[in-house]
């Protein structure tokens, strides 16, 4: 489409954002090479804090970097979940055209799960670690000042309060959230992405349900197996010559139970959370698409207004263009990124399941029936 103003001046499409995005695209490929990376972040060491008002968990966030933006080469701070939540919101506000990685769910949906249980804390820690690593890998987000503060500040709360006072910054982001403009046609490319995301989250949701069903069936199978094994033992007690083989079978079944338990645990702890994370990712991507739509709608409406009023040079369309451009670039990059991630993730899952199947076999082979 030819983007030119009624008076013939071509709209500047080669904005700084475009050239930087080109650079960024190159940078993204390099990011996979560990040696060129200059920022490393880890989340570990969860600790429980009991205060008069509440009990909560903090995690240690360790940073190692050679970047100029950081005063020191190393940092170690403690952060709690609401700090991560704050960071994410800040990132969304300040970089509205970018895709911010998802956080693990704030509240546990299942209800009866213990917020302080080892498994829950560990699952959360892994997710938070992944969240920060994704930001670290992102060429633009990793340079965000809020991110910097998050990694380095001793007292994050003081900074948070400071940020709240600057309402002017809020005003900017509000513009993108409350558009009120209606988009007539979503460009084919984005419509396709939208459709893809819809189907994608649908399919992931189905897989999540199937995986949960399998785990449930496996646990029921486990219950029966637990009764099955000891019966052979009882029988063994009855026999003389056969007691050894019967005991052997009983022991093997016991081993199978253990292996199966491990499999179910691993699926619950490693497989399911990642599925859910990608579903969240898809949701936030859809939101970005919507925002993009808003921006485009605004641009088109303003363009019409300009054509109608014959104004000289509207400032807004240029900005809008800039944004649109950025969105396009980053959307494509992130999608490519996601594919790669998905690829590797799946390999990990299946390796996990394979390992479990292997363990099963080993135990079965120990059957000491002569």
């Amino acid at each position, binding site marked *: 489409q030819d983007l030119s103003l009624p008076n013939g001046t071509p709209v500047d499409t080669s904005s700084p954002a475009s050239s930087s995005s080109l650079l960024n695209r190159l940078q993204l490929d390099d990011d996979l090479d560990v040696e060129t990376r200059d920022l490393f972040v880890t989340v570990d060491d969860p600790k429980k804090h009991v205060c008069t008002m509440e009990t909560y968990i903090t995690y240690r966030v360790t940073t190692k970097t050679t970047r100029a933006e950081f005063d020191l080469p190393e940092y170690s701070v403690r952060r709690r979940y609401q700090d991560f939540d704050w960071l994410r919101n800040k990132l969304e506000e300040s970089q509205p055209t970018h895709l911010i990685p998802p956080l693990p769910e704030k509240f546990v949906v299942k209800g009866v799960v213990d917020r302080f249980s080892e498994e829950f804390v560990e699952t959360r820690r892994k997710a938070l670690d992944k969240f920060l690593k994704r930001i670290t890998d992102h060429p633009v987000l990793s340079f965000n000042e809020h991110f910097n503060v998050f990694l380095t500040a001793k007292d994050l709360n003081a900074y948070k309060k400071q940020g709240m006072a600057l309402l002017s910054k809020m005003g900017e982001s509000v513009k993108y959230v409350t558009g009120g403009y209606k988009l007539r046609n979503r460009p084919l490319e984005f419509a396709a992405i939208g459709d893809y995301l819809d189907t994608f989250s649908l399919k992931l949701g189905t897989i999540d349900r199937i995986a949960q069903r399998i785990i449930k069936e496996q646990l029921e*199978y486990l219950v029966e197996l637990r009764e099955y094994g000891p019966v052979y033992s009882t029988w063994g007690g009855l026999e003389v010559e056969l007691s050894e083989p019967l005991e052997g079978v009983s022991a093997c079944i016991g081993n199978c139970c253990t292996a199966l338990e491990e499999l179910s645990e691993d699926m619950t702890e490693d497989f399911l959370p990642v599925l859910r994370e990608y579903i969240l990712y898809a949701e936030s991507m859809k939101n970005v698409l919507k925002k993009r739509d808003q921006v485009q709608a605004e641009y088109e409406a303003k363009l019409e207004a300009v054509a109608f009023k014959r104004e000289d040079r509207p400032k807004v369309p240029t900005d809008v263009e800039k944004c649109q451009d950025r969105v396009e670039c980053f959307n494509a990059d992130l999608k490519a990124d996601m594919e790669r991630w998905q690829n590797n993730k799946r390999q990990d899952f*299946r*390796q996990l399941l394979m390992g479990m199947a*292997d363990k099963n076999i080993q135990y079965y082979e120990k059957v000491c029936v*002569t």
Partner: protein
Amino acid sequence: MEDCLAKKMEITVSEAEKRTGRNAMNIQETYTAYLIETRAVESQIEGQCAPVDSLWRRYSEFELLRNYLSVTYPHIVVPPLPEKRADFVWHKLSADNMDPDFVERRRIGLENFLLRVASHPVLCQDKIFYAFLTQEGGWKEMVNETGFQLKADSRLKALNATFRVKNPDKRFTELKHYSDELQSVISHLLRVRARVADRLYGVYKVHGNYGRVFSEWSAIEKEMGDGLQSAGHHMDVYAASIDDILEEEEHYADQLKEYLFYAEALRAVCRKHELMQYDLEMAAQDLTSKKQQCEELATGTVRTFSLKGMTSKLFGQETPEQREAKIKVLEEQIQEGEEQLKSKNLEGRDFVKSAWADIERFKEQKNHDLKEALISYAVMQISMCKKGIQVWTNAKECFSKM
């Protein structure tokens, strides 16, 4: 085992057929008939192919044969028949007697029964058994003519003996206890196994849903599409594999079932012993009391309370002639009784000896068979796991190509 029929003759139950006919009450019924084929082995060695004789029998005839054998050879642990009705089923398995899978498994069970009888050193020589295999018409009449039903002990009598016997052979008491426990543990095992099979079936089948989702998902993906699609295929294979696996396991269950029913046969031998022993004890008791009576009458002393004694005291004593007559009768009875007791004792000892010999034979057979059954079960499980590994390895490969 040299004289075993099984060595001289090849026996198979090769086919099963649905038939309709009229029963004794002239009501139409449907039943399954089984084809028994026999062929002499010796002539095969000479290089000739012996002709195959065949006849059709139905389950009720097998039952008649077994009843006859149980009554005629009470000291033998008679091989059991496969179950009459489908028991220990899990949800996919049909409980219908006409179901082809059930009929097939029963056919195998009946063949197994015939082979067991034919390889038993004592049972294989029975003429009725031989006729069962070779003579189509008039067999039922032949069996009934033996009058074996008259020899059968009533259930009530046997139950009575079980409770009242005082000194059964300790080994039989232990054996009875063992067979009760064996029955209980095997039926528990079979019940749980059926539930385990049910659950395992569920686990495998749900994986089939992965196949469908992966296929649908692959349609919207570019680079990941092929990998997902092929992985989905493997999930389908995985889900389908459970059918064969569980069918094989049914065979294992049948092997266990045979010994479940064998336990009943063991019990029957114990019961016979109890009956004989009780009989013996009653006869001995009777003899003792008669001797006592005799003595009392002879010496005139009443050692034990008896109604006769009391009445004679109350209403006057008998005349010496009456007493003499009574003593004579008693002495005759005592002599008869002593002879009977002697022969009963002999019978009892013979029974114990031959029964125990067969029980030892049975024990060896049982240990051997069950060991083999457990081994093949383990092999089955290993093969199941290997298949699982194969499928997941294939799936993994597909995923790695995404």
